[in-house]
């Protein structure tokens, strides 16, 4: 879903840069308060994993492929603002080193994949998890919410992308929206599977490294006090 140069015009990519720069600046400022020795390598490795996973295009229907975004995964593991920074790093590296996504469209790509696919879908995860936690145990509610919100994140990012293409006068919304949303409803299934599997593994092996998972963290804290 990386928008290249030429699809958007300045009246769309300009404001998109503004919004993305604002969120990224805020994230840099807020993350400073929470940064510690353990987060530093974790953030780097999450970025590296997402870069690698984004290379793995899987085929979906009709000669189309899709790839993992990882924005919701990063937000769930590290916290939403840290997750946004991871996505900014990945998108910046892809744009500058690999010509994947245009430099003019970078703001829009951060907006679609980092802010909509990351922050917004993480807010949805938190809400879903709080509802589900009343019915099922926390780990299950996290995994179910992650599956649903990561799928939704990809679909919403595609919807945002089609709005931008429409605003830029590239293609009518009535054509872009159904085409983008329908193909990303399929791609989102891959996103949900990868996100859920990674979170299932990490919540089992290192539950303390999952920001959105609180249960066992309390036990660890108690042990540390003793």
């Amino acid at each position, binding site marked *: 879903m990386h928008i290249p140069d030429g699809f958007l015009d300045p009246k769309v990519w300009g404001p998109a840069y503004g919004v993305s720069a604002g969120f990224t600046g805020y994230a840099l400022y807020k993350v400073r308060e*929470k940064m*510690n020795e353990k987060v530093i390598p974790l953030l*780097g490795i999450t970025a590296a*994993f997402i870069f*690698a996973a984004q290379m793995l295009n899987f085929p979906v229907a009709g*000669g189309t492929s899709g790839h993992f975004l990882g924005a919701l995964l990063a937000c769930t593991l590290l916290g939403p603002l840290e997750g946004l920074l*991871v996505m900014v790093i990945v998108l910046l590296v892809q744009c500058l080193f690999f010509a994947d996504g245009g430099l003019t469209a970078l703001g829009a790509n951060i907006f679609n994949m980092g802010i909509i696919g990351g922050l917004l879908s993480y807010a949805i995860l938190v809400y879903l998890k709080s509802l589900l936690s009343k019915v099922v145990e926390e780990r299950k509610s996290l995994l179910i919410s992650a599956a649903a919100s990561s799928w939704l994140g990809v679909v919403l990012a595609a919807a945002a992308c089609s709005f931008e293409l429409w605003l830029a006068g590239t293609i009518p919304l009535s054509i*872009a929206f159904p085409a983008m949303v329908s193909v990303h409803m399929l791609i989102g299934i891959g996103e949900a599977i990868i996100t859920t599997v990674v979170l299932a593994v990490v919540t089992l*092996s290192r539950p303390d490294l999952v920001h959105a998972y609180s249960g066992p963290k309390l036990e660890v804290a108690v042990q540390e006090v003793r």
Partner: protein
Amino acid sequence: MEKISNFIKQNKGLIIFLSLGLIVSVLLGVFVSPWASSSPDGLEKVAEDKGFLKKAEETEPAWKHSPIPDYALKGVKNEKVSTGLAGLIGVLITLVAGIVISLVIWLLRRPSERSRPGHET
């Protein structure tokens, strides 16, 4: 240096876990990515079908200095090797970028606050 060796001693589990994460990322980037689907992705396919892909093809890229455009390392004839090497380079660049950026953020904290656990919810 003593601080670092203490940190390593206290966080053996974390270091093993992170190393495994890095190994998985390198393996995916180097050995799996050459076999990824080369079909156009969702947006590209829509652009092709709806006839606006030419808007990108006719536009000069705003940044012309990407050393490895389209994940293909120049000068390497074998396509699979070329993609795998691009994957390795990309994984290392994102790893270093992530660590350097968070290290700078960390150094901007007041020294007294640096090891305060603040990341937990």
